[in-house]
């Protein structure tokens, strides 16, 4: 039994309501008021289309958030209270919606693409998670990962000590230099814990690329982990702490650029939310590794041996659809000389892999996630491409798991690793 169940129900509901109310900004309010309940959003969501269960309709996942809004803040809230038309939320409702708010939403934003009102459901889900966290209603494995990230700097145990050991090992084994904690550098490079623990070759690949570009760069043991599990779990304070670690590290080494790793949510957290969390514009540029590679290619600083193969690219939702950087990986692939076979739905319209938003960390969501993964398998098979690449380690992990589960004969590769393998000189 979790500690949370000892807290009285009214206290937990009140905590959720307080957090919800804080999140009823103008954007949230207008979006919730504008919904016409047409249900079109269902057709964009991999969790609905793979199950055809109406409960997975995107806007339905926000029902408790909507009830709280109508009871407390909506323009007609006083009237609704007077007439008893809106009862507000109960602990039971919050508990039963936990699966929809966490397990069944990767915050991929595909539903916004189809919504006639342009409602940013992913952003609303992200806000609704604040209230869920406050009520102690985060799936335990996701909460524990976020807590580790807050206390140990990594959700997967990639503590500073582990990082240093890994860097030593990788430097020895691959003959690369990963400069830790330099007092000054133009570029601060960050990683995803998934890369550090599961795909360490990505660290080597980044080191090779930065050396090739002749960059002055460093990795800080005080701010190296970019996957913001504080944000994913719904803990605003932890989100702040995790962003601030990187921001402080970048300021300390006077970096002009922070390069984010192959991680979609890291991009959303720092590129688009970092300054808002920090409370001021960031004194450095924030780029995703795919953007960094594309800019090197544009400047002629990336000399590559051509890769004469056909390849299809999986867009990480937070970098492409919600991040606006869908062109960058394609520029890099063009520089690699691959024969790009696009999926039917790609770039802004790409289907999510099903593992974003912390979903891959929630064990009980495995079946739902793996069901949704079929959509990707079918799309990729239809391209007939020989290779498969992405620029998100979380997507890669989801693909590895999905491929193993479905006994699919395709293997996801990292864009950065592909580039590093083809560097000339």
């Amino acid at each position, binding site marked *: 039994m979790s500690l949370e169940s000892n807290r009285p129900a009214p206290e937990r509901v009140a905590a959720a309501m307080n957090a919800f109310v804080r999140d009823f900004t103008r*954007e949230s309010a*207008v979006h919730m008021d504008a919904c016409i*309940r047409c*249900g*079109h959003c269902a057709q964009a969501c991999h969790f609905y289309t793979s199950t055809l269960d109406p409960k997975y309709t995107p806007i339905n996942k926000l029902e408790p958030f909507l009830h709280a809004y109508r009871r407390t803040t909506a323009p007609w809230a006083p009237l609704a209270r007077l007439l008893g038309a809106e009862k507000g939320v109960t602990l039971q409702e919050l508990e039963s919606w936990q699966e929809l708010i966490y397990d069944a939403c990767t915050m991929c934003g595909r539903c916004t693409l189809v919504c006639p009102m342009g409602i940013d459901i992913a952003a609303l889900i992200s806000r609704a998670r604040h209230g869920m966290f406050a009520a102690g209603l985060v799936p335990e494995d996701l909460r524990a990962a976020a807590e580790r990230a807050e206390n140990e700097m990594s959700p997967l145990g990639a503590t500073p000590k582990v990082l240093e050991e890994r860097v030593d090992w990788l430097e020895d084994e691959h003959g690369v230099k990963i400069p830790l904690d330099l007092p000054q550098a133009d570029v601060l490079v960050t990683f995803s814990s998934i890369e550090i623990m599961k795909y360490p070759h990505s660290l080597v690949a980044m080191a090779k690329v930065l050396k090739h570009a002749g960059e002055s760069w460093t990795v800080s043991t005080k701010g190296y982990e970019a996957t913001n599990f504080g944000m994913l779990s719904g803990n605003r304070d932890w989100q702040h702490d995790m962003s601030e670690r990187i921001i402080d590290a970048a300021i300390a080494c006077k970096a002009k650029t922070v390069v984010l790793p192959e991680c979609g949510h890291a991009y959303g957290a720092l590129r688009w*939310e970092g300054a808002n969390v920090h409370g001021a514009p960031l004194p450095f540029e924030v780029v995703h590794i795919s953007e960094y590679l594309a800019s090197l290619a544009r400047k002629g600083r990336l000399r590559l041996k051509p890769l004469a193969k056909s390849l299809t690219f999986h867009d990480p939702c937070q970098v492409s659809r919600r991040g*606006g950087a869908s062109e960058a990986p394609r520029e890099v692939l063009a520089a690699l000389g691959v024969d790009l076979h696009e999926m039917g739905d790609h770039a802004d319209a790409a289907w999510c892999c099903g593992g974003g938003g912390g979903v891959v960390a929630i064990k009980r969501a495995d079946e739902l996630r793996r069901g949704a993964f079929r959509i990707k398998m079918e799309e990729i098979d239809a391209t007939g491409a020989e290779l498969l690449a992405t620029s998100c380690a979380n997507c890669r992990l989801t693909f590895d798991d999905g491929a193993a589960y479905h006994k699919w004969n395709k293997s996801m590769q990292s864009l950065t690793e592909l580039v590093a393998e083809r560097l000339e000189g």
Partner: protein
Amino acid sequence: MTLLEFARGPALTVALTVFIAGTLWRIFRLATRPAPPDRSAPRVDAAAAGALLGILRRFWPHPRFGARIGFSVFIGYLYHIGLAVIVFAYLPHIEFIRKLIGVGWPALPAPVTYFAGGVTMFALLIALMLRLTDPVKRLLSRFDNYFSWLVVFLPVATGMAAFDTAAGGFNQTYIALHLLTVELFLLWFPFGKLMHAGLAFWSRGITGVKYGRRGAMP
């Protein structure tokens, strides 16, 4: 006071007052919600273009979703256009508006507007059928959705019934009922989903600005 006098007099005044005051209140309440500034460095510094694109592009379904939502969108367009024709191109309505606000414009021939009325009623019935039979729409539907449907359908139905072909003129009781149902529409407008007529632009615009500055599809 006859029913028609009531509908033309006090009922209309009350309905218009609630319509205007209620709509302004709802806009005011939404506009005064906190709107924290977005401090991230924009990729594209073009908020107005993002808003405009976001508003315009959603008039047409995203090409990748046409097959999945096309029919629902088509039916929606049928009754929205039908309603616009009836309200703004039917001579008696233009006269009504002229008396109310002093501005008028040329009308379409009456048979065209009657045809539009028929199409609108048909499309509204299909929309209701979809709402009742599609599992997703049914799950999402609330009193608001059904009542909003009713207050749109009733004025069209009573309006169509008001023309007495045998007598070659309008049936006064139906005209009164027609006016009363329009007033019901006006009374309900600020409280429910009907207000998407204006909120759609605001909602799309917000997303347009947010994603436009990111260089993503607004």
